[in-house]
């Protein structure tokens, strides 16, 4: 009987912890899974088609990198109760504030266009015309934000996050070789040697893992959710779980691409889905659904990141807990960003490839600045108190930030001058 009561006690305690986690869970999971957006799926598909399983180890390496960077936004948001844009304005003055805000607006809008490109390409496979996809997505995202509660928005976003797992059964359909996966994927190596092309693919994978909008989004989400200092451990756990899930999903996309698409030049995830449809109908369908979901999740988060940032600075009501009458400018900004980005995809002959490349260049200008500000803010003892970066965190984060700054700059240069790295 004592044994039974002990088991019951442990079960109820574990259940309480799980229930508590589900109350706190959200910003970390959503931002990390949304990181696998349409651009991210394209990058994974193209990398795995080029190098097979060869760079899976690199993707694994990016999991802790993403965690360490994003974890800082949890602490900063929970302690200051301010979004990232407001923290930059307050900490570094109006010049750096406007620079970050305008750059964020531009990079978010361009990234949103790429999400619409991914979503329209995915649904075109099922015969849905682009105008219908854009209209349906705008309507859906409108309904999601206009429910007037952050909690409901977050739980709906988490449901879409679950759809991201659709790549996992896809990997089982292709029957990958486990021994090849272990030997080629988990042991660090550069298939074909470390050359300009390899460098370009490594950079693209870093670029999809750490994006400027993620810093702004997670910190604002932490504030809108009302997280405080006591929630920081849960916020960290949430972020860690999110980074693990995003890494696992990425690996499964690598497995699908590395098994079936090896040797094919992939230019878009839509093209990859069509090719996979030819191999196996279910596989192609999973890929297309996953691509649509990835674009949708990206759109959900990116459009909000800008609106939150503008609301913080202009002093508008900027919470999802406000209805449209209480926060008209916040929602006007949200819908303006969404509708204009969607409209661009429908313009006949719009330079969509150029836009996709331009996103990477603009993101490169914002990312180093946002990361440097993040580290400096996390070292401000007056504001952060006991939650400031420790020496080990500073060393680790500085190495990560310096590496990202150098590599992402080189990536930006390689996009501007492609011949330089050939």
């Amino acid at each position, binding site marked *: 009987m004592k044994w039974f009561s002990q088991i019951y006690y442990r079960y109820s305690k574990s259940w309480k912890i799980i229930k508590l986690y589900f109350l706190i869970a959200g910003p970390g999971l959503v931002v990390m899974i949304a990181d696998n957006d349409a651009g991210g799926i394209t990058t994974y598909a193209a990398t795995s088609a080029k190098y097979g399983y060869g760079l899976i180890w690199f993707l694994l390496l990016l999991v802790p990198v993403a965690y360490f960077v994003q974890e800082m936004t949890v602490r900063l948001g929970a302690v200051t109760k301010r979004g990232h844009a407001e923290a930059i304005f307050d900490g*570094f*003055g*109006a010049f750096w504030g406007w620079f970050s805000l305008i750059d964020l607006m531009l990079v978010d809008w361009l990234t949103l266009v790429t999400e619409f490109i991914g979503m329209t390409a995915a649904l075109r496979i099922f015969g849905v015309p682009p105008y219908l996809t854009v209209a349906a997505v705008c309507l859906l995202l409108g309904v999601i934000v206009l429910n007037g509660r952050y909690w409901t928005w977050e739980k709906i976003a988490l449901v879409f996050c679950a759809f991201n797992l659709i790549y996992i059964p896809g990997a089982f359909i292709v029957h990958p070789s486990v021994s090849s996966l272990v030997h080629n994927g988990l042991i660090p190596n550069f298939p074909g040697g470390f050359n300009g092309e390899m460098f370009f693919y490594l950079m693209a994978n870093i670029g999809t893992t750490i994006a400027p909008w993620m810093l702004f989004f997670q910190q604002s989400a932490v504030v809108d959710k009302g997280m405080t200092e006591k929630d920081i451990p849960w916020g960290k756990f949430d972020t860690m779980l999110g980074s693990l899930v995003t890494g696992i999903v990425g690996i499964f996309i690598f497995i699908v691409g590395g098994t079936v698409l090896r040797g094919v030049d992939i230019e878009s995830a839509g093209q990859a889905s069509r090719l996979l449809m030819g191999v196996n109908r279910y596989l192609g369908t999973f890929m297309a659904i996953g691509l649509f979901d990835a674009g949708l999740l990206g759109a959900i988060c990116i459009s909000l990141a800008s609106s939150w940032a503008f609301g913080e600075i202009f*002093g508008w009501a900027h919470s999802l807990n406000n209805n449209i009458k209480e926060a008209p400018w916040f929602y006007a900004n949200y819908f303006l960003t969404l509708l204009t980005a969607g409209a661009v995809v429908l313009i006949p002959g719009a330079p969509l490839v150029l836009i996709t490349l331009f996103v990477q260049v603009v993101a490169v200008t914002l990312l180093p*600045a946002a990361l440097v500000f993040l580290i*400096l803010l996390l070292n401000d003892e007056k504001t952060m108190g006991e939650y400031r970066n420790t020496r080990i965190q500073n060393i680790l984060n500085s190495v990560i930030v310096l590496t990202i700054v150098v590599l992402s700059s080189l990536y930006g240069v390689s996009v501007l001058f492609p011949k330089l790295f050939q």
Partner: protein
Amino acid sequence: MWKIVRRQFEKIGEINRKYSKPRIEMSAPVRWSLLLLRCYLLFLVGLMIFRFITLLH
């Protein structure tokens, strides 16, 4: 309409005044970091302008 635009411009002025002074203590490492960031961004903008001009030609 004009009123709304004027109000937003006034708001920008207000924001500039509110955040005119950085709150973070400008210690040597902070000042160096910001200086390096400015140099880096100028270099990047210079590259983009150079690329734009070479594309036009």
